[in-house]
């Protein structure tokens, strides 16, 4: 990833030494996540902005009616677009997919699409000819580590927030009702996957990691860009509130002990629970506010008559 960003040896040494003492450069403890700020769009459905530390991204969900794939006539379409533009950080190049970018998009794909977080069969309108196609566009606005975690949270929040316009089917004809005409319908979400990335640092020599039995490897949650560039290994666990692991991906890097994996996955569960509840509360509040506004509008309409 960091093609043009080099961290001086001096600085690297500093970060590593500090981690050994359990200190991170931004003052967090090792297993403390930054608090994401989620802002929902007050008027659009399915537009969400996530601020996770300095990492910032916007997710927009859109829907259209298309023909389904021939081999799956009863299923709607769902695509996630995860192109990272140089806007996020100068070391992402346009149109050039580095390994890291592919890994990020594959992970999000696996976490959300392959795990059937969105019920595709509920998107079917007329079998074989017309289905809803849902598209999630992730715009990475700023990058300071944790792209996967924040993108996954963003897409899941946006999917829960989004409402597609209501339709009525009349034989082969479909009428799409505008938002004013009829209440739009929410998507059917089967579960809410949450990605938690852990980064590993090896405090000692490689020999100690391979042959020693100290198990001193340091694992930290939600690392910043600097830590991401220096880390020796990473592990992404996707889990939902129902204690279901959705995917685990440790693509190489520093070997870790099996007991540590168990430990980290239960920790991931706690974080997932916390984030799911937070999103739920936020959506509930948003719903109430919209309801209030709508009522007000209706009242106003009556008054003006």
């Amino acid at each position, binding site marked *: 990833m960091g093609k043009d960003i080099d961290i001086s040896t001096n600085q690297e040494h500093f970060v590593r030494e500090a981690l050994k003492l359990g200190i991170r450069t931004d003052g967090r403890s090792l297993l403390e996540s930054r608090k994401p700020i989620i802002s929902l769009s007050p008027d659009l459905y399915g537009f969400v902005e996530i601020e996770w530390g300095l990492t910032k991204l916007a997710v927009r969900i859109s829907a259209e009616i298309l023909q389904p794939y021939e081999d799956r006539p009863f299923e709607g379409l769902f695509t996630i677009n995860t192109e990272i533009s140089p806007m996020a950080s100068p070391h992402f190049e346009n149109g050039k*997919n580095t*390994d*890291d970018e*592919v*890994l990020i*998009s*594959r992970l999000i794909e*696996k976490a959300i699409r*392959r*795990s059937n977080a969105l019920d595709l069969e509920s998107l079917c309108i007329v079998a074989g000819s017309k289905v809803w196609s849902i598209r999630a566009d992730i715009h990475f606005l700023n990058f300071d580590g944790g792209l996967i975690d924040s993108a996954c949270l963003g897409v899941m929040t946006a999917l829960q927030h989004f409402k597609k316009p209501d339709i009525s089917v009349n034989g082969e004809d479909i009428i799409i009702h505008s938002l004013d005409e009829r209440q739009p319908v929410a998507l059917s979400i089967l579960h809410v996957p949450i990605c938690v990335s852990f980064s590993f640092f090896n405090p000692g020599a*490689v*020999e100690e*990691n*391979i*042959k020693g039995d100290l198990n001193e490897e340091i694992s930290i949650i939600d690392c910043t860009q600097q830590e991401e560039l220096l880390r*020796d*290994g990473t*592990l992404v666990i996707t*889990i939902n509130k129902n*204690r*279901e*692991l*959705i*995917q*685990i*991906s*440790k*693509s*190489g*890097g*520093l*070997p*870790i*002990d*099996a*007991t540590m*994996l*168990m430990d980290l*996955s*239960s920790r991931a*569960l706690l974080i997932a629970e916390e984030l799911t509840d937070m999103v739920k509360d936020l959506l509930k509040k948003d719903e109430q506010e919209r309801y209030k506004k709508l009522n007000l509008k209706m009242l106003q309409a009556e008054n003006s008559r």
Partner: protein
Amino acid sequence: MELYSPEGLRIDGRRWNELRKFECRINTHPNSSDGSSFIEQGNTKVICMVQGPMEPVLRSQSNPNQANIEISITIANFSTTERKKRLKNEKRLVELKATLERTFEQSVMCKLYPRTVIQVNIHVLAQDGGLLAGITNAITLGLIDAGIAMYDYVSSISAGLYDTTPLLDLNTLEENDMSTLTIGVIGKSEKLALLLLEDKMPLDRLESVLAIGIAGGHRIRDLMDEEVRRHGNLRLSKVNV
């Protein structure tokens, strides 16, 4: 189709903790590569050829501190029953490649070979589940055959979960119908170099699947070690003639 019968037998007649036939050879292509291997894990067949460490073709490939490991994976069109053209830059393959490169960057002593590149060419001849595991094992053997210094074996195996029973070393039929966890173990330790779970699995079952996976990985390591020793002793006896 019953994947796991009440009597405890799987679709191909194995028990839950039984590996498929594991065969491996090293030094299969002594003239065309520095190190080579061939593995058969059930019906999955992989050839691995290692070139290097050698002078990189491009300047940009050379790193003054350590060797660069480059893995290229070719999956034969005839490797599955369905013949289809595979693109070299398919996302799944890029992910596989990146995963393998990162795994072996840690277990190979790259620091010993500055400014060089280690080129690993993988040819998948037949696929029947456990693709990542098979490739990982083939690369481990190939690197050992090339005389490249490694901290330890990386042995890999897949394990799945059927209802509540963990099953070891899945074939394609099983892989399609249950969640599969592929793990890569370092030597005889419980250190995991590689982990890949792509489908849902209850958190509470993870431990039992991991346990059988690690045990299976150790067994694979022993089988590979046996082959390395057999080949090594044969070679040694020739040198001494």
